Structure formats: structure tokens, C-alpha cells
């Protein structure tokens, strides 16, 4: 048992022993007592807690039974059960990862043994412990925060898509919630004409909005950057400072100001147009109260708020193009538009590509631009039932469903949809990164 072959033939034995009990291989065969003891202690804690873990997982599967006779605070609360279950799953996930690491560590120690023909000493391990623990200690705040404040909430949200957690009738603590499989998906994707229609409308507008918002802001920012770069006007810095202002003012504030300025009946813009004699009291422009016009207004106001970011970005990228390139082109007799098309545009586009994609995904989820400007208004025919209004995009609809209608299950289905659509963009961006390409990861 204790005899260890250095020709690689004991690999299977170590693998099995380390798999039987966490840290067993370290303790018995590899003689790394400290490390082995730590691993073993962890597994023992988990075994002691196992019944409790099992009970919590069981509750997550049943989501509680209706108990009409008990007072409210003693009833099974399905949502707490679901969240506790997901929290436990997160803990189990960490445990399984550590188990995996322990097996890997045993195997790699054995590999070193095969190469050097001696086992590492325990003392050496202790001195190395400080260095080895640094990455773990450094990442643990990130892992904990992300796991419990980002991953668990998102997994919870995804799970809710498969339950009937919605008003009326299934809101804890008065009632329990049950798993319903794909019923919500079926309902929203064709099961009910009103809801399916609203979903199609909102999804189409979300994509149109994200495309229009990204393209207008990018083009607007680039035009301003190029014009200021080309013009030989002395006071360009003054203009640049003015154009940065929308980026510096909190978007929420500027959106609320615009909302008031654009108000159809008492807004300053319409009143100004009346004073100028361009229209009468009867023919005021319904900037935000006509469903079609409101969409254009939202894109336009978003251009106001969003072009400075891309202007700054383009200006930064343009300084990276060498001045010799511009000079050479001009000596060769290239006109301004030729220089722009052949030099500025391609190089700036190339450099800012990842940020364009990022901006597109950001706009799909651009809650603030819609919510604080129009609040999703105006109402359209199905708004009373679905709470999806004329300029609502997916995320603002999710907010309405959660806060106003308490249809949590439908909101969760929409969140899953956004994930399915946006995840490929994130992976595409990941594969483009320099560190990924250089195989460093």
C-alpha cells in the first residue's frame, strides 16, 4: 500500500484514493499531512452538515406544501425555500471545485515524484503556503460577492421562469409556488395572443432601439470628433468642453429635464414653438405621447446623451493614428473626405469594434434612457393587461412586470430570453481579447 512506484504506474491508485475521501491520498501515500488534514477537515464538515443540506435541497424541490390552517409566518414560504436551495447549491459548487482541486493536486504531486523520485517535504509546503494562498485569498472576495450577489440572484431569476410565481394566486407567504416546467414559455411564445403579441412588439422595438441608439451615438460622436480634429478653429477646446457636458451630468437628471421640456401640453419646447408662431395650441407635437413619435424622440434624446462618450472614444483613437499618415495622404493630394474614408474611419472602427459591441449590449439593457425619459409610456392597446407600453424595452418591461403586476414568472422568462440573445455577444468579445488570442488564459 505505502510503496509508491515512480514509473507512473501508481497514478490510478492515487486517483482512486484521493477520490474516496478528500485529502486521503495526501495523508496516506503522499505524506503531505498539513494539506491532507485541511482537505479532510473540510469534507468532515460537509458530512456533518449533510442532513441539513439534504433537507434544504428537498425543500427546494417541493417548494413547500399549502398549509391553510397555519398563521402566515409559520407557513411554508416557497421563495425562501428556493433561494436557500440555490445558496446551498452555490456552497456545494464551491465544495465540488475544491474536491476537484484536491484530486488534481494529488496527481500533480505524484507527477513531480515520478520526475524527481522524492516526495516534497511538509516543511517546504508550509513555507510555500503563503505564496500559494495569495491567489486564493486575493480572489475570494470577488468569488464570494459574485457568487452570492450576482450568480445566485440570476440563477434564482432563471429558476423562477419554471415556476408559477405570479400574482394573483401564487404569492408567498399566503400561497405556495410550484414548478410548472415550460408552461410560462409556452404561454408567452404562442399560448396567448395578447401576451405573445406584446412580446413580439417589445422584442422588435428592443432590437431596433439598440441598433438605432448605438449607430446614432457612434456616428454622431465620430462626426463631432472628426470635425473638431480637422477644423483649424482656435476655440475648439471650448466646444469640446461643452460637448462633454451631457456625459458629465447624471443621465437620470438630464432625462427627467428632457421629459419635462418635451411634455406635450406644458413642455417648454412646445410652448416655444407656439410663441414663435410655428404652430397653434391645437396642433402641438405629442413628443412623448404618440407611440411612433415617442420612439424617434427617445432615440434622438439618447443621441444627445450618448454622443459624448463616442466622441471622447474616437478622439482617443484618432490620436493613436500617426500624424505622418495624415500628412502623407495630403501630400499625395487626398481630399478631406478621402482621408476620412481611407484612414480615419477604418482605423477608428477597428480600434473601437469591441466597444461598439459592448455598447449594443448595453443599449439592449439601457434601462435609464427609457425609464426616466418616458417611463415606457405612452399606453398602447394591450398595456393594461401586459404592462408593456409603447416605448418599453425588455428590461423596463421586466421592471413593470416585477413591480406593478408581480408577474415574476413572466419577468423571469424575459430575463432568460435576454440571456440567450446576449451571451453569444459576450463570448464573441471574449474570444477577440488579446489575452485570449495569445493563449495566455
Amino acid at each position: 500500500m505505502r510503496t509508491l512506484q515512480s514509473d507512473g504506474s501508481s497514478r490510478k491508485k492515487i486517483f482512486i484514493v484521493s477520490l474516496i475521501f478528500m485529502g486521503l491520498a495526501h495523508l496516506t501515500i503522499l505524506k503531505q499531512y498539513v494539506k491532507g488534514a485541511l482537505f479532510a477537515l473540510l469534507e468532515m464538515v460537509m458530512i456533518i452538515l449533510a442532513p441539513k443540506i439534504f433537507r434544504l435541497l428537498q425543500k427546494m424541490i417541493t417548494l413547500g406544501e399549502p398549509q391553510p390552517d397555519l398563521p402566515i409566518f409559520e407557513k411554508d414560504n416557497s421563495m425562501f425555500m428556493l433561494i436557500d436551495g440555490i445558496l446551498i447549491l452555490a456552497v456545494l459548487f464551491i465544495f465540488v471545485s475544491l474536491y476537484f482541486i484536491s484530486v488534481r493536486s494529488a496527481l500533480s504531486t505524484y507527477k513531480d515524484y515520478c520526475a524527481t523520485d522524492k516526495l516534497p517535504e511538509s516543511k517546504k509546503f508550509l513555507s510555500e503556503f503563503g505564496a500559494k494562498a495569495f491567489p486564493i485569498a486575493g480572489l475570494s472576495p470577488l468569488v464570494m460577492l459574485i457568487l452570492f450577489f450576482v450568480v445566485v440572484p440570476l440563477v434564482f431569476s432563471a429558476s423562477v421562469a419554471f415556476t408559477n410565481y405570479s400574482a394573483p394566486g401564487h404569492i408567498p407567504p399566503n400561497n405556495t409556488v410550484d414548478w410548472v416546467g415550460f408552461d410560462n414559455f409556452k404561454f408567452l411564445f404562442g399560448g396567448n395572443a395578447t401576451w405573445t403579441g406584446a412580446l413580439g412588439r417589445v422584442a422588435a422595438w428592443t432590437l431596433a432601439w439598440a441598433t438605432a441608439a448605438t449607430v446614432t451615438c457612434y456616428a454622431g460622436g465620430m462626426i463631432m470628433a472628426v470635425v473638431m480634429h480637422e477644423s483649424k478653429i482656435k476655440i475648439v477646446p471650448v466646444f469640446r468642453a461643452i460637448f462633454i457636458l451631457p456625459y458629465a451630468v447624471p443621465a437620470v437628471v438630464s432625462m427627467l429635464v428632457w421629459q419635462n421640456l418635451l411634455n406635450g401640453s406644458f413642455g417648454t419646447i412646445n410652448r416655444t414653438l407656439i410663441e414663435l408662431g410655428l404652430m397653434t395650441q391645437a396642433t402641438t407635437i405629442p413628443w412623448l405621447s404618440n407611440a411612433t413619435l415617442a420612439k424617434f424622440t427617445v432615440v434622438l434624446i439618447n443621441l444627445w446623451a450618448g454622443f459624448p462618450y463616442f466622441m471622447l472614444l474616437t478622439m482617443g483613437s484618432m490620436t493613436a493614428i500617426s500624424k505622418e499618415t495624415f500628412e502623407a495622404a495630403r501630400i499625395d493630394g487626398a481630399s478631406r473626405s478621402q482621408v476620412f474614408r481611407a484612414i480615419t474611419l477604418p482605423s477608428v472602427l477597428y480600434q473601437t469594434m469591441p466597444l461598439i459591441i459592448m455598447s449594443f449590449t448595453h443599449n439592449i439593457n439601457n434601462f435609464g434612457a427609457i425609464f426616466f425619459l418616458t417611463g415606457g409610456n405612452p399606453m398602447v392597446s394591450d398595456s393594461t393587461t401586459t404592462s408593456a407600453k409603447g416605448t418599453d424595452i425588455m428590461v423596463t418591461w421586466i421592471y413593470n412586470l416585477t413591480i406593478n403586476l408581480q408577474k415574476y414568472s413572466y419577468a423571469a422568462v424575459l430575463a432568460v430570453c435576454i440571456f440567450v440573445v446576449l451571451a453569444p455577444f459576450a463570448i464573441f468579445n471574449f474570444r477577440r481579447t488579446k489575452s485570449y488570442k495569445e493563449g495566455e488564459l
Partner: protein
Amino acid sequence: MKTNSDQTPINDSGELNQPDNLQNGGDAVVNESTIKDDHRSKETAENPENKDEVVEKDRVFEKQINKKSLKYQNAIQRAKNRTYKAFVLVFLVLVSLVVLYPLVYAVSAAFSPGKSISALSIVPFGSGVTTSHFQRLFKETNYIRWFRNTLMIATATSVSTILVCSLSAYVFSRFRFLFKKTMMLALLVLQIFPSFIGMIAIYVILLRIKGLDTLWGMVLIYLAGNIPYNTWLVKSYIDAIPRAYDEAAKIDGASNARTFFSVILPQASPIITFLAIVSFTGPWMEFIFAKLILRSNENQTLALGLFSFVTDRKNEFTMFCAGALIVAVPFIVFFLITQKMLVSSLAGAGVKE
């Protein structure tokens, strides 16, 4: 390329030398040089020995050409440039007016008497100037309390974001470990979601750790929401710092933590400053989580307080503007001071990833 045409040097022939003639007068340059070349080749063929004299004659001839052909070319060029410049100036002024209009109007509303926007004059500052809204803010509302709460949340969020993100970014950049690739990809996928999608779960988790209606609960939410994107941002920056620096520190006996704090952090200070600004400004106007988590009167933030002025029930637009102005002015000053750094940081984020 020269960009300043107002400093037009006068050349030896007394002709105004337009620095722009290389840009748009390409044809003129070509014609001229052909003429010169023809002339020179004739001269050299006739008098091959006396080069100095040829050069001297050449120069005189060149001046004559300059005077005759360039005078006309330059006149057109100058006229063209002047119209172009005027056109650009008008364009920039028009855009500036559109950009400034809502901001100027909001500032004027903050100083105007009355409550709703419907009572305000359409001309900024047209309905008189008063500071009564500011007095009311400080005397009749909890503005100072809101401000203090928000300042505390923003400061704590900023400091903790810098610590967690830069430390994790350092580990991601310099160490190799299991699941590294998976974790990096997970961060990138997670950053596409707005945090409020999981707000019910976050509410329950805060309830479990007794973080409801507390300022530190808000900090935890904002911090967790900041981590995914910003860790990537800082990691890309640290990747570009030469490893020779930390290796030198290691050889001198510095521990990993020491290397991080005294070598990496100072080197990464531009991106850290950027991160500090972004994470500090974020919480000031965050509304959704503040409304969900902070219920009691004493824990309200600025966003909640200001929004209470423009609810459906009452529309005190002027009060809202006054309150927002106090917050926005330091922001604007801050952005204007740091705009150069913002440009390079934003470009860096695009170039380095």
C-alpha cells in the same frame, strides 16, 4: 500637419505663405514642380560647369513662378478655407446650442420662482431669479441627510471597488490557476445583465444577513455589480505593465501583497483613477435598488429625495432642478478637469482588450 493658420509667416518674396496649400492645392504643387524641372534641365544643359550661377538663377525664377501662379491659387485656397471654416464654426455653434439648451434651462429653473415647469417662462431666467428653492432644500427637507448618506455610500463603494477589482485583476493577470479561463468568461457574461434582474433574490439575501434598510447593504449591491466589468478593465491594463517590474520586486524579496501595493498599484494609477471616478459617480443617481432596500426616512439617498419632488402627485420641477444642480456642478467640474485622462482611459479600454 500644421493646424494653426492664424500664424501665417511671410516668406522672402513678400507673399503670404498659406500652410494649407499642401493639403488642398495638390494640383498646383505638381504643376509648379514640372515647370521648375523643365527649366532647370535646360539651364544645366547649357551651362554644366557653373552650378552656383544656375542655382542662383533658379531661385530667382522660382520666386517669379511663386509670385505669378501661387498668387492666384492661394487666393482661391484662402477663400475656400474661409468658407469651410465659417461653415464648421456655424455647425459647432448650432450643436453647442442644442447640447446646452436643456442644461441652461434646468439651471434657470433652479433659480426661478414657482413650482411646475408649466409656469416658467420659455426664455431661460425669464421669470426672475430667486434662491428660495435652495433655502427650502436646506431648511424644510432632509437634503443634508440625503447628501451625507449618498456620500458615504459612494465613498465606500468607490474604495471597496478599487480594492477588490484591482486585487482580483492582479491575480488574473499574473497567476495561473485552475478555472481561470472559466472565471474570466463568467465575469464577461455576467456583466451584460443589469443587477435589478435578480432584485428579488438580492432582497431576500439582504434580509437573511440583516442588510435591509442599511447603507452597507447598498454598498454590497453596488460593489458586486461593479466587479465583473471593472475587473476586466483593470486586468487588461495590468497585462500591459511589463512583468520585469514585479520580477525585480520579487528578487528584492517582496511578497505578493507587497508587490501588488507598491509596484502594480502605482503603475496602474491611471486606470485606478478612472475606476475611482466611475464607481464614485455611479451611486449618486441610482434609484431602483435604493427604493427597494432603503425604506426608513433617515436612510434616504439623494436620488430618492430628488425624485420625491417629481412624482405623479406633485410636480416641483424647480426644486428638483435646484437639488440636482448642487450635485451636478461638482461632477461637471470633475469631468472637465479630468477629460484628458478620460480620453486616454476610454481609448485604452478599447485598444488593449
